C-alpha cells in the first residue's frame, strides 16, 4: 500500500469515528440537557404551562436566533469538523478551547488548518475538557455547594436580588471589547436607552417586547450605518478582521 493511500485511509477512519461518535455523544448530551427542565415542567409538581415555555422560547429566539446559526458557521473554519462536536458541548469556546488548541499547535509546531493541526487541536480540547470537568466538579459541584450552605442569608439574598445588573454590567463591557465594533456599541446603547426610558413607559405591554425590539433595531441600524469603507465590498473583508469570536 502506498504511503498516500495509507494516510488517506487513516484520516478517513479518524473522520468517520469522530463524526459518528461526535454526533452520537452530542445527541445524548442534548437529550440529557433537556431532560432536567422536562422533569421540572412535567413531573415535579410545579405549575409550569407548556404554553409559557413556548412563549419564553419565542422571546429567546427573537433575541438570539441569528446567533444560534451564525456561531457554528463562524467556528467551523477554525475548529474543523471533528472538534465542532466537542466545542459546542464543552462550551466556553472563545475564551478556553480556541486558546488551548492554538497553544498546542504552536507547542508542537504545526499549522492550524492542516490535518496535523486538526489532530493537535482535538487532543488539546480533550486536555482542556479533562481540566475543566475536574475543576468544575471539585470547586463548583463539591466546594461551591458547601460554600453556599455556609454563607449568611443576607449575603445570599443580596446576590439573588442584584446578580442580574451585576453580571450584565461586566458582560456588556466584555462584549464591547471583544467585538471591537464601537459603532455597533453606540447604536446599541442609544437604541436601548430609547426603548427602556421612552418606549416602555409610553406603550403599554411594550415591556414584553423591549429586548427583541432593541436587538432587531440595533442589528438593522448597525448594518445600515456600517462603515462602508472597511465593510463595503464582500471581497475586501480579511479574515484577520474577524472579532476574537462571539462572546458565547
Amino acid at each position: 500500500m502506498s504511503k498516500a493511500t495509507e494516510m488517506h485511509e487513516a484520516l478517513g477512519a479518524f473522520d468517520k469515528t469522530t463524526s459518528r461518535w461526535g454526533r452520537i455523544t452530542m445527541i445524548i448530551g442534548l437529550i440529557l440537557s433537556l431532560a432536567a427542565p422536562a422533569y421540572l415542567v412535567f413531573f415535579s409538581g410545579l405549575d409550569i404551562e407548556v404554553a409559557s415555555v413556548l412563549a419564553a422560547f419565542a422571546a429567546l429566539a427573537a433575541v438570539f436566533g441569528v446567533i444560534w446559526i451564525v456561531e457554528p458557521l463562524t467556528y467551523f473554519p477554525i475548529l474543523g469538523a471533528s472538534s465542532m462536536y466537542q466545542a459546542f458541548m464543552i462550551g466556553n469556546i472563545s475564551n478556553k478551547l480556541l486558546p488551548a488548541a492554538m497553544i498546542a499547535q504552536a507547542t508542537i509546531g504545526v499549522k492550524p488548518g492542516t490535518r496535523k493541526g486538526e489532530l493537535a487541536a482535538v487532543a488539546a480540547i480533550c486536555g482542556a475538557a479533562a481540566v475543566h470537568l475536574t475543576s468544575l466538579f471539585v470547586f463548583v459541584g463539591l466546594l461551591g455547594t458547601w460554600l453556599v450552605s455556609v454563607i449568611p442569608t443576607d449575603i445570599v439574598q443580596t446576590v439573588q436580588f442584584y446578580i442580574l445588573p451585576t453580571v450584565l454590567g461586566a458582560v456588556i463591557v466584555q462584549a464591547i471589547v471583544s467585538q471591537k465594533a464601537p459603532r455597533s456599541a453606540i447604536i446599541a446603547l442609544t437604541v436601548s436607552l430609547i426603548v427602556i426610558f421612552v418606549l416602555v413607559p409610553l406603550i403599554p405591554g411594550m415591556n414584553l417586547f423591549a429586548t427583541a425590539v432593541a436587538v432587531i433595531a440595533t442589528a438593522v441600524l448597525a448594518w445600515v450605518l456600517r462603515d462602508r469603507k472597511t465593510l463595503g465590498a464582500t471581497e475586501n473583508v480579511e479574515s484577520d478582521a474577524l472579532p476574537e469570536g462571539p462572546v458565547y
Partner: protein
Amino acid sequence: MNIPALLPAAADSNSTDILAIANSPVLWACAIGVFLVIIVQSVIYMKAAKTAAPHIGMTQDEIKTSFRAGAISALGPSLAVVMVAVALLTIFGTPAVLVRIGLIGSVSYETAAAAIAAKTAGAELGGPTYTQAVFGLALAAMSLGGAMWMIATLILTPLLKRGDSALRKVNPAIMLVVPGAAMIAAFMVLGIAELPKSWIHVVAFLSSAGIMTILMLIAKRVNKPWIKEWALGIAIILALAITYAATRL
C-alpha cells in the same frame, strides 16, 4: 427505585426557595450524565487521534504534548469560569450552573436567557417574584436555547464539511456586523432595563461595568491576557461586595 423519594417534598410553584427544587436529585443526575457524556466523547476522540497520528507523520509524543498543552492552558480559564459559576449558585442551584454555565453555555448568554424567560412570565430573576415555577421556566428556556446551538451544530457541520458553497457565500460583512451588534444590544437592553428598578440596581450595574472597564484597560496597558480571563469573575464578585455594602447604608 422509589420515585416519590426523588420528588422534592418542597415542590411549590409559589415558593421562592429555589434551591429546594434546583438541587433536586433528578437535576443532579442529568448534570452528572452530561459530565459522563463529555468524558466518553473525549476518550473516543483521543483514541481516534492516537490511531490516526502515526499514519500522517505525527508521533504519540506530539499527541500527548498537545493534550498536556491544552490541559495547562485551560487551567486559568477554567478557574475563572468556576469563580463566575459559584456566584450564580444561589440563583440556579448547582446542577443547572454546572451544565448551563460551566459546560454547554456561558454566563453571559445563560443569564440573559433566564432573564428574558422570567420577563415573559411577568417575573424577575432573583427577588420576590423569582419563584420555583419561574426558575423551572427559566431553566427550560435556557436549555431549549442551548439545544438550538447543538442542533445547529449537528445540522450545519456535515453540510459545511461537504463544502456546501451556498453557506460559505453568506456575505461576510453581514456576518461580521449583525451577530455582534445583536449580542451587544441584547446585553445592553437587558442591563439598562435594570436601572429604573432601584438605586441599588444602578450601583450594582455601574460598579460592575466600571470595574470591568478598569480591568480591561489594565490588561491592555500591561499586556497580560490572564487579566482578561479573570476580569468577569473579579468584576462580578467585587461589584456584589459593593452592592452588599450599599444595601447596608
